[in-house]
């Protein structure tokens, strides 16, 4: 009996507390910076594409919504010549971001992707590619990786020792 009256009072008291509702179109919800929304492809600090077309994201994708085709430019860097994400299948799980060895593919706090037609949900590379480095401002894969590209030979990457002269006896 007392508990019932108490329940009534607790519920009635809520009349004077502000609502938790966020009135979305007028008022934007506060999204966390780690929110998993629209997927983008980011660039190096020097403005080059980060993606090396390793296909790990396409392999790990549980809904198989990522399609890409590897190519190689004249400097020896790998890049995707086609990169396509079908967002009508994407479940925004973020596994592609976790799988990416070069931090190229990233999920952003943007969910306003509604379209009238399904084929608008298929994003090509030019729709995915952004101008900035995303969540990792200083990171450049090619400058820490061991592979030789034009202007950077093997053993010339950051934190890498120069090649050992195998004919010298000095330590």
């Amino acid at each position, binding site marked *: 009996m007392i508990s019932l009256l108490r329940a*009534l009072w*607790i519920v*009635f008291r809520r009349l004077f507390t502000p609502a938790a509702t966020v009135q979305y179109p007028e008022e934007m919800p506060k999204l966390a910076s780690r929110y998993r929304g629209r997927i983008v492809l980011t660039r190096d600090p020097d403005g080059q594409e980060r993606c090396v077309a390793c296909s790990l994201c396409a392999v790990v994708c549980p809904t198989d919504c990522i399609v890409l085709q590897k190519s190689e430019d004249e400097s020896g860097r790998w890049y995707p010549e086609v990169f396509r994400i079908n967002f009508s299948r994407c479940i925004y799980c973020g596994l592609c971001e976790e799988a990416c060895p070069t931090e190229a593919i990233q999920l952003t706090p943007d969910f306003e992707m509604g379209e009238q037609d399904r084929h608008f949900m298929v994003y090509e590379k030019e729709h995915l590619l952004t101008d900035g480095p995303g969540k990792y401002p200083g990171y450049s894969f090619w400058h820490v990786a061991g592979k030789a590209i034009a202007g950077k030979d093997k053993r010339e990457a950051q934190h890498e020792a120069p090649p050992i002269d195998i004919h010298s006896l000095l330590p």
Partner: protein
Amino acid sequence: MNGLGSAADIGGILGGAIVTAALMIWVERRLLAFWQERLGPNRVGPFGIMQVMADMVKLFFKDEWVPPFADRAVFVLAPTIAMLATLLGLSLIPFAPDVGVADLSFSLLCLLGLASLSVYSPLLAGYASHSKYPLLGGLRAAAQSFSYEVFMGLAAMGVVMQAGSLDLRVIVESQYRGWYIGPQLLGFVLFLIAAVAETRRAPFDLPEAEQELVAGFHTEYSGIKFGMFYVGEYIGILLNSALIVTLYLGGWWGPAFLPPLAWFLLKMAGFIVLYLLLRTSLPRPRYDQLMRFGWLVLLPLALVNLIGTAAWEVFS
């Protein structure tokens, strides 16, 4: 004589009841939302008040489907009873000294009879739908009505004894000295519980328990027939609030700075909010718990109240 039952009264009470019942759908949704820290429907019109219109348009344009296996005549009759019985009941309520439709010398009896009649609506709906969940809902409505009708009448008899009349108007007039909620506090609580059960609303919404019976007795109903059940339920709330105010809270009596009708409607509004609050905050009892509570706790209490009132009347 004094404008009772005039065309203005009939039109005003009928139209006012239906419009208020429709508006209550919006009031309930918004109040429930506030009690749950939400906002509720606030988009259509100012404060979302036109949500009712949108809902009505939707109901009117829905497919009016009668299941091929249903008993067609009874199926159509059931929602009609839901609205008719409660609307007829409102005609017996004395809203103010000169506002009201019918003035019978046995209006309380007549009202209790109409209330019992309204039980036929879920009963017949459950039977006529000819499918399992509605039938279970109808059965529950019947059993539930057996449990509360008895002590509802007995609780009201305490007031009848004190007023010495079955005429609601006389009952209100006899509360000039003091409202019956004081001497009849036990009766008031009993009657309040019975009135909530009468409207078949939470926590006594066993006949339509959504979690167990889909929608209970009106599972097979759609379109405007469902709308009639829906509005009938809200008119039932209006009727029962008005009845409680009439019997226990002195009807139209109140300090003179407001007209009698305003006092009546204000008290009614208080009970309507209480109805909604009960619905939001209390869990639904189990089926057998409700019946045991009705027969073994509330009925003896109502009898004690009756005998106590009788003794008071005789010896004082």
